């Protein structure tokens, strides 16, 4: 089922901040849309408007055949009637209810036996067996997240809204749960919208992404598109990673992984939790350019290519090298002159294996 979603809202805050979001989307059954942006960009407010917990001053939100908000028609559908699953940043589990009580909280309308059956189903799906009688404070961060997700999906919502689902977790748990969350979202086959300020979350979880800053949508596209081809300097600065390419792991030994990207085998420091399919992410500052034919260095990766594009920003220049994929490199203007780099110049891009960052990406999508 493809779900049409049209958002055109305006909301101003006492601080003077104005949010103006226009976004039209088609969300396929299991599409994950990531709302990405720095804190204070308005992405959480947008999510809350979708959940019915915040209200725009003007505009409308339509989801499939329903209108959720239309200020012109004085229409405001309350959160109770939207049939969305919403998960707040800190999970907002009810402290005086058990895990089972939390999951069954919204199932009051069902007869007892159906309710019990649905709770058992969701408990199994999120692997919460054995924890049913625990209170939220007796759970680990990862378990709390799973309970919150279970509660959100128990009512079979039409869409899932997750606000920073991974930010309350410590780093190792976060890495592990990121993969779990993606497989779960795919398994549920219902569209979801995730708010995050973490580019790794965005890459690992998103099928589509919208970059939001200053209360506006700056760019939409697949995460890889947005990361590799930001439409302007502002988006580039917000996403913070300059090169993102898809690859798959060829070999792993001695703590190094070799990833096939275009015709190259790029070496990266291996991360255990990373599967076979990965995104290779490289910051432009970490790429060293050499003229062809100069000596070897300690860098593990030497990629041959030609300069495709040069753009200047202050004392630095961003050089995009075509080496089978677009690789961005940040060099000083002085270095640019020393190397006499121009569009078309053949170069070797050197990257230390430690500067190549891998983000797990299951090929399920």
């Amino acid at each position, binding site marked *: 089922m493809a779900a049409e979603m049209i958002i055109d809202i305006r909301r101003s805050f006492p601080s003077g901040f104005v949010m103006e979001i226009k976004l039209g989307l088609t969300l396929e059954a299991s599409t994950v849309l990531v709302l990405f942006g720095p804190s204070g960009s308005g992405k959480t407010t947008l999510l809350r408007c979708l959940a019915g917990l915040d209200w725009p001053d003007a505009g409308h939100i339509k989801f499939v055949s329903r209108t959720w908000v239309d200020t012109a028609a004085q229409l405001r559908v309350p*959160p109770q*009637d939207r049939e969305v699953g*919403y998960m*707040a940043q800190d999970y907002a589990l009810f402290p005086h209810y058990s895990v089972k009580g939390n999951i069954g*909280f919204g199932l009051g309308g069902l007869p007892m036996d159906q309710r019990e059956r649905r709770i058992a189903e969701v408990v199994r799906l999120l692997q919460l067996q054995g924890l049913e009688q625990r209170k939220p404070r007796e759970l680990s961060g990862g378990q709390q997240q799973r309970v919150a997700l279970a*509660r959100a999906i128990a009512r079979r919502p039409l869409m899932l809204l997750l606000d920073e689902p991974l930010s309350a977790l410590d780093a190792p748990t976060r890495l592990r749960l990121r993969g779990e969350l993606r497989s779960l979202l795919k398994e549920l086959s219902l569209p979801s919208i995730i708010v995050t300020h973490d580019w790794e979350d965005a890459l690992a979880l998103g099928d589509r992404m919208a970059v939001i800053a200053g209360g506006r949508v700056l760019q939409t596209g697949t995460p890889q598109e947005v990361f590799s081809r930001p439409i302007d300097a502002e988006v580039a600065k917000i996403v913070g990673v300059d090169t993102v390419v898809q690859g798959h792991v060829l070999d792993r030994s001695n703590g190094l992984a070799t990833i096939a990207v275009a015709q190259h085998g790029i070496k990266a420091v291996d991360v255990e939790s990373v599967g076979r399919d990965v995104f290779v992410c490289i910051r432009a500052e970490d790429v060293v350019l050499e003229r062809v034919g100069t000596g070897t260095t300690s860098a593990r990766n030497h990629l041959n290519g030609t300069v495709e594009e040069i753009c200047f920003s202050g004392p630095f220049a961003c050089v995009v090298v075509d080496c089978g994929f677009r690789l961005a490199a940040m060099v000083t203007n002085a270095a640019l002159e020393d190397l006499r780099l121009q569009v078309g110049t053949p170069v070797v891009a050197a990257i230390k294996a430690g500067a190549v960052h891998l983000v797990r990406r299951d090929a399920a999508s």
Partner: protein
Amino acid sequence: MNWTAIWVTVKLAGLTAAALLVIGMPIAYWLAFSNRRWKFLIESVVALPLVLPPTVLGFYILVAIGPHSPLGRWYAELVGHPLPFTFEGLLIASILYSLPFAVQPFASAFDQVDRRLLEASWTLGVSKFGTFFKLVVPLSAAGVITGVVLSFAHTLGEFGVVLMVGGNIEGVTRTVSIDIYDEVQALNYAAAGRTSLFLLVTSYLILLLVYAVNRKAWAAWPQK
């Protein structure tokens, strides 16, 4: 000891506390969750009995429920006798007089309930009313108990309002504090002392309960 006076007092305090549980909760809910700019007006009205001399409050209540006011006339026609100097009149006065002692603990407890929990409940399809009983009340149980107990205790010791509105009718409106006053007037110090000690001990036990409940509640539901 005047057991009739004690019974009248306990009955009055019990009914006042029960009525305030019912009346105070919606007022407190509105005070805790409303974003209206003029909320402070209502807050001030609720707090008035804290600072007003009981005689002043009693005077206005007496006028308001007396046979010369529309309210008083309506009641007299309905029931057959006027409100002042009856137990019902005294009950109305006590409810107004103890209103802040119930509403303020209720409202401050409601106010401390994490809004995000309520929002989570709404997105789970639970109405505001249902959310109130499933989340707000249990999570502010200590505040609710405190409000009920304090309004009970406060009514036990009221004097000025009783005198103004209820008078001093044995078995109907003669409460413990009036009884003590009468005994002292009659230079009957021993009887006054006994009843005073009874009131002192009762009030102390009630306050013990309030503080114990609050400690226990905080230990049971820590803020994470």
